């Protein structure tokens, strides 16, 4: 008998515990209320690792150079933001997020998960969304090509003068420096 009473009591307690959020209604947010912002990957850390991997033979020299070229400006921006003081906390986030920024802006490869924070995917998507530029025929529509399908020249994924990304396949001049994209 006693067992039954205590047992029902226990069950009732359990029920109460489980039902509480429902009783508070749809506005209840519960434990999931305050989600801290996910920590941003630091570009300086990335550079350290690139340096380390190169030293231990995990990167070929040209991969090393190009990875450094990708991360060094980001890391510098991060450092500047950090120096800027308290306000810089946000800015450093901006710098680190920049890897993915191009994707969102260009929209081309911006599939559902472009904003997902998967740095690898975002960087790759950004690379793909760039327009390749032929020195003779200008920006090309073919995303993956290595050589221009019209004239056979090597395709660069950016303005040849200033290095800015070219995103519009119809642009005839670079949006950054104004130099002509086609000969």
């Amino acid at each position, binding site marked *: 008998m006693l067992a039954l009473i205590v047992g029902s009591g226990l069950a009732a307690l359990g029920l109460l515990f489980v039902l509480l959020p429902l009783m508070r209604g749809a506005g209840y947010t519960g434990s999931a209320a305050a989600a801290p912002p996910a920590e941003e990957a630091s570009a*300086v850390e990335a*550079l*350290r690792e690139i*340096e380390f991997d190169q030293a231990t033979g995990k990167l070929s*020299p*040209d991969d*090393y*150079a*190009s990875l*450094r*070229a990708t991360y*060094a*400006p980001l*890391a*510098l921006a991060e*450092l500047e933001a950090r120096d800027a003081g308290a306000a810089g906390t946000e800015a450093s986030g901006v710098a680190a997020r920049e890897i993915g920024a191009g994707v969102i802006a260009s929209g081309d490869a911006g599939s559902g998960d472009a904003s997902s924070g998967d740095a690898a995917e975002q960087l790759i998507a950004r690379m793909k969304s760039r327009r390749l530029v032929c020195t003779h025929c200008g920006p090309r529509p073919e995303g*993956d090509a*290595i*050589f221009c399908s019209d004239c056979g020249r*090597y395709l660069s994924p950016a303005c040849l003068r200033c*290095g800015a990304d070219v995103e519009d396949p119809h642009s005839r001049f670079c949006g950054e420096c104004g130099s002509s994209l086609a000969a």
Partner: protein
Amino acid sequence: MSERVATLGGPEHRGIDRRAFLVAIAGVGASAAAHAISAGTLGAEQQQPAANFAPMEQGAYRPTLRPDKPGATPVLSVEQRDALEHRIKCQCGCILDVYTCRTTDFSCQVSPAMHRDVLRLVAGGYDAQEILDAFVQTFGEVALTEPKKEGFNWAGYLAPGVAIATGAVVITMLLRRRGTEARVAAEVRAAAAPAGGAAVPGMSTDDLARLDRAMREDA
């Protein structure tokens, strides 16, 4: 199945034996063992069968006898005989071969009986293959510790190899296709690679030095 209907602690209670146990052993030891045990639990109302192990069947022995060859002299040495017994599976329900079973568990009556048959056949002048064949004739192919390499058994031997080879071919083809594209790109890249490893285009030496300092702060 009758031995499972044993009374609690009764003298004729068989419970789990080593053999049954060996069937259930090791990897997930306890759980398996436990299951084996549960099969032998008390009371006739226990309905859970001893699914995971075959109880030791002391009656599983069947004689494997052949007349001695005329003028028979043993062609197998003691070592060869022991090696042969490693290739014959004990039929008591364990997972061991005859040699291991008879030298591990003294309560098994099947493996010593099979051993005696082996001795008689060896004395009768039979060679290893003939003895194996004789045991297969008596018990069927379960008498061998590995399936004969014939017929459908080849599927058993070859399937893993075929599966892995297929996987390897798929990976190779994948890499080949990508590889050709990449090779051209790599040549171009090599031609266009910047000269200095550490230099980054568009950044001043001051900036680089600053980065360098930041990177070395990893204490």
